[in-house]
């Protein structure tokens, strides 16, 4: 029997850290990376007597994600307390949602090359993050654990999928898709390394052809897309080996150990917590009426898939271009700002996919940080379209813009980069080149057509690259055939 006989059944639980300015139940800053325990108040410290007050933006964000994933929106959502003791949980309970989450029964379609995997979403609910226990930092003694409460009360959405994912690769694709979506919606920065996206996975195997579910394990501690894929792959082979040797899978939580490349048992089901969920009496139910839903729906940005389709249709772009351009919302916005102002849409696409993306990769920055306004790129493309500069010069102008921040027109003017379109001037340069290379002229006339490129190159060099290459071509051919 081989692995082929078993089918992996995977479900994901993803925590999405929201980009709200303040925390979910108090007005403390939700910013990442502050000095420990400086972004705190009696409320997020869980002092006796304090009460939570819901940040309305969290509801908006939950609705955005819910509407973007075809969820049903609960008209009356309710927060619940999840009770457990831990030093980084000041109240002894986490305010989360249980019976009435904001969103339920959604769906995300993942394009997997030639087929589409439809993953159903069980629910999306909001909750507060816990603090952070510090063990490893230099200032923590070997026999102590310190707690940073800054993260307490930072808003999270938890998205839970049905067990509809069938391979580690699909899981990774799902995460990439979700990251793109939350970034488009502007609700999360999608950074898995900084833990703004956190993923736990449930996995079981079942013999192919069967419909029941096997015993699952829950995997935690995966800090990147590749960890998720590796951990699932490891777990598939571990479970496969156990099942094929007749052993039983134990329902348990397992930690991914990235150094050893294995999953390790953390706690079994018998020791699982009884969280004693009940509706939080300190928070009134959140009534989400149709008006609110419609307002959020109206304000939803165009989502990646729709935008891709529109780019293909509106700008006559190849599917490949449209896909690359829409991967990141800021890039797509930039492209669009350029494309609407230039005649040649494909040229705009080439510039963004080529020079712009190359630049971002080299500088390891995102487009907002680049010294490039969409209008500058428009200018460059227009300078080409009008014949003022040729495309080779245009690339050096582009680099100049990035370095200096000056406008392309100014650079072209100050550096005298205007294309030479004056036939007399070009002919003069051609004459000089031909006179300097009599042997090559003879060879060309003897049928060595390939030398055409050589002549063009020489003429371009003689004109500092400013001659219009098309004119150079035409004129050289005319000279060589004419005499």
């Amino acid at each position, binding site marked *: 029997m081989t692995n082929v006989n078993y089918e992996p059944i995977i479900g994901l639980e993803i925590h999405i850290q929201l980009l709200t300015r303040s925390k979910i139940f108090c007005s403390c800053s939700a910013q990442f990376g502050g000095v420990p325990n400086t972004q705190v108040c*009696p409320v997020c410290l869980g002092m006796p*007597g304090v009460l939570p007050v819901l940040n309305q933006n969290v509801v908006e964000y939950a609705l955005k994600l819910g509407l973007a994933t075809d969820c049903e929106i609960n008209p009356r959502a309710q927060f619940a307390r999840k009770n457990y003791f831990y030093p980084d949980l000041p109240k002894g309970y986490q305010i989360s949602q249980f019976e009435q989450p904001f969103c339920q029964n959604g769906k995300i379609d993942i394009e997997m090359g030639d087929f589409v995997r439809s993953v159903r979403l069980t629910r999306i609910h909001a909750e507060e993050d816990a603090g952070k226990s510090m063990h490893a930092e230099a200032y923590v003694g070997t026999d102590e654990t310190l707690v940073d409460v800054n993260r307490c009360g930072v808003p999270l959405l938890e998205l839970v999928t049905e067990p509809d994912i069938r391979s580690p690769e699909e899981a990774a694709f799902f995460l990439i898709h979700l990251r793109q979506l939350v970034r488009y919606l502007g609700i999360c920065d999608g950074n898995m390394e900084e833990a703004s996206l956190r993923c736990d996975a449930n996995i079981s195997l079942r013999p192919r052809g069967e419909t029941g579910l096997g015993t699952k394990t829950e995997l935690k501690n995966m800090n990147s897309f590749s960890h998720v894929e590796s951990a699932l792959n490891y777990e598939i082979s571990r479970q496969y080996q156990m099942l094929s040797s007749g052993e039983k899978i134990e329902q348990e939580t397992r930690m991914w150990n990235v150094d050893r490349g294995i999953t390790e048992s953390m706690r079994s089901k018998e020791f699982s917590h009884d969280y004693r969920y009940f509706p939080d009496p300190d928070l009134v139910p959140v009534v989400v009426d149709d008006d609110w839903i419609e307002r959020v729906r109206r304000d939803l940005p165009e989502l990646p898939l729709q935008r891709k389709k529109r780019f293909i249709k509106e700008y006559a772009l190849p599917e490949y271009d449209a896909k690359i351009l829409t991967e990141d919302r800021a890039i797509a916005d930039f492209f669009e700002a350029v494309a609407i102002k230039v005649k040649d849409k494909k040229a705009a696409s080439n510039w963004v996919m080529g020079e712009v993306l190359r630049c971002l990769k080299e500088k390891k920055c995102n487009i907002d940080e680049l010294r490039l306004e969409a209008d500058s790129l428009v200018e460059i493309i227009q300078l080409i379209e009008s014949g003022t500069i040729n495309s080779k010069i245009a690339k050096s102008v582009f680099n100049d813009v990035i370095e200096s921040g000056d406008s392309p027109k100014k650079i072209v003017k100050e550096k005298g980069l205007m294309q030479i379109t004056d036939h007399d001037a070009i002919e003069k340069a051609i004459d000089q080149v031909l006179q300097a290379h009599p042997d090559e002229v003879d060879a060309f006339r003897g049928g060595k057509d390939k030398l055409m490129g050589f002549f063009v190159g020489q003429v371009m060099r003689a004109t500092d690259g400013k001659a219009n290459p098309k004119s150079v071509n035409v004129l050289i051919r005319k000279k060589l055939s004419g005499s």
Partner: protein
Amino acid sequence: MHLTELAYTQLRRKLDRSELSCEKLVDLYIENIHEQESLNAYITVFEDNARQRAIEIDNRIAGGQAGMLAGMVVAIKDNIVMKGVPTTCGSKILSNFVPPYDATVIRKLLEQDAILIGKTNLDEFAMGSSTETSNFGATRNPHDADRVPGGSSGGSASAVAAGLCCGALGSDTGGSIRQPASFCGVVGLKPTYGRVSRFGLVAFASSLDQIGPLSQTVSDNALLLKSIAGYDPNDSTCANVAVPDYGSFLQQEVRGLKIGKPVEYFSQGLDPEINRAIENVLESLARRGAEIVEVSLPNLEYAISAYYIIATAEASSNLERFDGARYGFRSAGAKNLEEMYVKSRSEGFGPEVKRRIMLGTFVLSSGYYDAYYRKAMQVRTLIKNDFDRVLEQVDCLITPTSPTTAFKLEEKLDDPLQMYLSDIYTVSVNLAGLPALSLPCAKDHQGLPVGIQFIAKPFDEGMLFRIADHVEGNHTC
């Protein structure tokens, strides 16, 4: 008559006419506090701060700038936080806790120039009906030192009754203001749920807790409620409902009012002397033109059971933050995290609090939630519906506040069920979220005060003040 026996409205007249100073008044209360130390009404007294503040308020009165409560010497139940002074909740686990912020009600009292004199004793975490479970010892009833003052706001009730303050704040989760008010012969109000902000009240059962005033007179009570009530953006459960001028409800007639007498409140278990006292008031009201009608609240018999499930469930969660990690008591003997929790909580909480935490933990456990917590919430809805229905027919309900007058110290301490039953007439009001006021209306043959309870529609505290003020003025006890 001793000055500390006067109601605030009378004292204020003297203060405004400079016949009396706040400084002098504070000294008188402090003198009383020292003389009556054996009552054990206070956990903390702010002698110096109160004297200091009295001087400030005297200046403000002289300058004609004084607030609604200028010079009113007020005591605060020690489960309401005040910045910079200990809040113990009567528990060892908070014996060293000093909060860094003020409760909303404290801020409001200070804005109206009240003088805060001290923090009063209570059953540990407000869990009890006798003020005997405090880590700081039992409080005694000023009418008979061998008897309990009721609870859990027994310190506040005892202090008001003994003239150790002019008014006080308590908290009422199942009767904790009204029952001690009844035992000590003072006026105690549990406002409508959401009328007063809970921000800064250390939670016992969040969906039932409400802060309210205790005072010698109905008019003082109305004034205190006016000062502390109203919307608070820091409390999501606090209602955005305008606060009326409660003074306008005083000195009104009762002619034409419809008053309901719920038959279930007058059944077996009620002390005949109390029954007679209530009937006397009803007769007197009828003579003055009120219409008395019998009404029925059929689901009342389930109130105590539902209450002890809901209240303990919420308490078990609310008290999880007392874990020894960040503030309060931490056991010295712990060797690891688990031990720190177990030992700190085992040593820090008293037996009644532990009993309720265990009960609450049990009813929320998976497998039991539906049978207990969910069922209790359904019963709660039925009880609320009962009240809504009868309050559509009448302006107010009248019942006894407690089935007995003040009982002896330790009489019920070892019998939790008997103790829980002393709240039988009050808990249903908390379950339904209604306002209710206890007014002294008689004394029994031992000279112990008897309380009568008025219950009104949500946010109709004005009606309670109207009828209670009328009874207070026309019915000698």
